[in-house]
């Protein structure tokens, strides 16, 4: 049963391009989403993620390329006939209808007979704890309740694909965390395809099976949260995913090593970048070891966070590193200290193209810093 279901909710973008006049919003998008998968479209505002979602909903037409749902090309299919449900950032509840009428609306438009309609509205309301609110108007509800009604209106139809456009961005932080958990549970329960647009990497990382990172209309990387975090495909993904963000050090390849005024890292085996090539080394804040190591630095700032401290280190070459350190470590601004790296967890990028370079490093000798 689950197999039939998966083929059902499969979504495919092929060479999809969208331009408004001369302004190209989505370029050559190829994306294949499996049925039942929870996929986030993640990127800064203006990256084309919402346009991508709206094209899938049928609210925008692609300039070229094809979009298919469940194996059927839907370019020419009206939004209502695509069997997708959408939750809008603004919730878009119909202000003149009660909660019950709002939830029943998609069923009414599909000609579901009244007794069944009422039954399904009741069921959707129960699963979202809305039963008490069914006779209210949207303006009498809190933001969180409105959010639930919007979800209910999507849920009641049992569509093949759920489209969610930043549904949590209008909620306060506490409610957002709560709704995140509810969405994960909901997806686990109904196993439908969820396509979730967000600019919040935390939402994308915590909820998704896979994340599609977009920037300036171009798909940067499509992978699981672990892949996107541990093997960012390029400098944009590296800089966008992770908080605090990855430290990026500009340097150059010379004599089989990466060179930066503060550190030299010999490449290990494989085919190291050619000498003279400009490179960017990426260090996650948690992949730096403080206290011992081959390199020297001075502490600029310490931010205690309770369970950890975020430390800004001034290193040679005028760069500053942001480091995640154990809360127990005695650190104070102005102090000099030694530091080292987990060489297995470093990232290397081509400075010109921004693309990832797969390179391994050997641990630098203690003397290399001198």
């Amino acid at each position, binding site marked *: 049963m689950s197999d039939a279901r998966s083929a059902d909710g499969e979504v495919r973008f092929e060479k999809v391009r969208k331009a408004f006049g001369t302004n190209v919003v989505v370029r050559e998008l190829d994306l294949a989403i499996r049925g039942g998968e929870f996929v986030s479209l993640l990127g800064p505002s203006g990256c084309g993620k919402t346009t991508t979602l*709206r094209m899938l*909903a*049928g*609210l925008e037409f692609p300039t070229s390329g094809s979009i298919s749902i469940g194996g059927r090309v839907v370019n020419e299919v*009206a*939004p*209502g*006939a695509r069997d*997708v*449900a*959408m939750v*809008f*950032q*603004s*919730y*878009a*509840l*119909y*202000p*003149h209808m009660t909660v019950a009428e709002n939830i029943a*609306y*998609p069923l009414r*438009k*599909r000609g579901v007979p009244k007794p069944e309609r009422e039954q399904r509205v009741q069921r959707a309301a129960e699963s979202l704890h809305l039963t008490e609110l069914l006779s209210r*108007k*949207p*303006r*009498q509800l809190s*933001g969180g309740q*409105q959010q639930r009604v919007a979800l209910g*209106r999507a849920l009641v*139809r049992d569509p093949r694909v759920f*489209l969610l456009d930043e549904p949590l961005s*209008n909620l306060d932080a506490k409610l957002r965390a709560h709704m995140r958990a509810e969405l994960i549970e909901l997806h686990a329960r109904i196993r439908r395809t969820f396509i979730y647009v967000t600019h919040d990497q935390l939402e994308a990382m915590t909820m998704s099976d896979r994340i599609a990172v977009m920037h300036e209309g171009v798909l940067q990387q499509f992978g699981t949260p672990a892949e996107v975090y541990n093997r960012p495909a390029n400098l944009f993904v590296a800089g966008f995913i992770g908080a605090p963000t990855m430290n990026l050090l500009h340097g150059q390849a010379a004599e089989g090593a990466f060179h930066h005024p503060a550190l030299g890292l010999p490449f290990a085996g494989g085919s190291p970048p050619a000498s003279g090539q400009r490179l960017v080394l990426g260090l996650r804040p948690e992949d730096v070891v403080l206290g011992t190591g081959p390199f020297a630095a001075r502490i600029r700032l310490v931010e205690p966070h309770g369970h950890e401290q975020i430390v800004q280190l001034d290193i040679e070459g005028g760069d500053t590193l942001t480091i995640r350190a154990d809360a127990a470590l005695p650190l104070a601004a102005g102090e000099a200290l030694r530091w080292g790296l987990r060489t297995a967890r470093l990232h290397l990028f081509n400075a010109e193209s921004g693309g990832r370079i797969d390179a391994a490093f050997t641990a630098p000798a203690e003397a290399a810093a001198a």
Partner: protein
Amino acid sequence: MKRIAGRIAFNLFAWLVVFVTAFPLVWMVITSVKPQFELFRIPPTFWPEQITFEHYARLLWETPFLLYMRNSLILSTATTVVVVAVATLGAHSLVRFRYPGREKLAQLVLFTYLLPSVVLILPLYLMMVWLGVANSLLSLVIAYTTFALPYALWLLRSFMQGIPDDLENAALVDGATRMGAFFDVILPQALPGIISTSLFTFILSWNEYLYALVLVNTDAARPLTTGVMNMLISAFNIEWSLLMAASVMMSIPLIIIFAFLQKFLTRGFGAGGVKG
């Protein structure tokens, strides 16, 4: 102390304005129920010594007043229906759809207001003759539509701009057709705007004089404005008491409509549907 004085001054001023505005109306009502002989007494009496409804009776039973009233009602209602139907769909198109020349079109619509209506009357009259509808209620409906529609379009456009796109999009995704979404979602949201536009159009048509005077010269198609003038004002004599009674009765439909629709105008529904 100063504040109280200011308040008193403000209130006095406000009542003065009310008095200046309302006095002619009050005088109209009072005159309409005075017997003929009391009208020109010097000094004039404010409260009539004797109240009579003979003028009303004469108007209703002995003159074509009811015919004019019927014409005016048909004319204003038809104009309002045509203008609101076209303007609602047109405004929706101007707000929601993207097509070349959309903004230009919206501005061009206002161009009709640059020309004084006197300039447009003769061409319009010739067109009516050419269409074969001259001297009929239909010709007036068409003429009134030409100047009520542009304003109605702009009024409704600004109303519709306040309705979030997402509402219509949600209806489309929920399975409504374009028309279905329009009727289910847009229309209820635009209702206060549609009501005020209807009111505006109705009043405009009800009070219009110039076009009615030029385009129609038969009692069968004369509305109240020109009909009453034609009937009661001749070169030698003005029948003041009849005129005042007619004026009172002409005002009544508008007052009823206003009283009925006012609550729709001020009711702020639409609030709270969309957050952010």
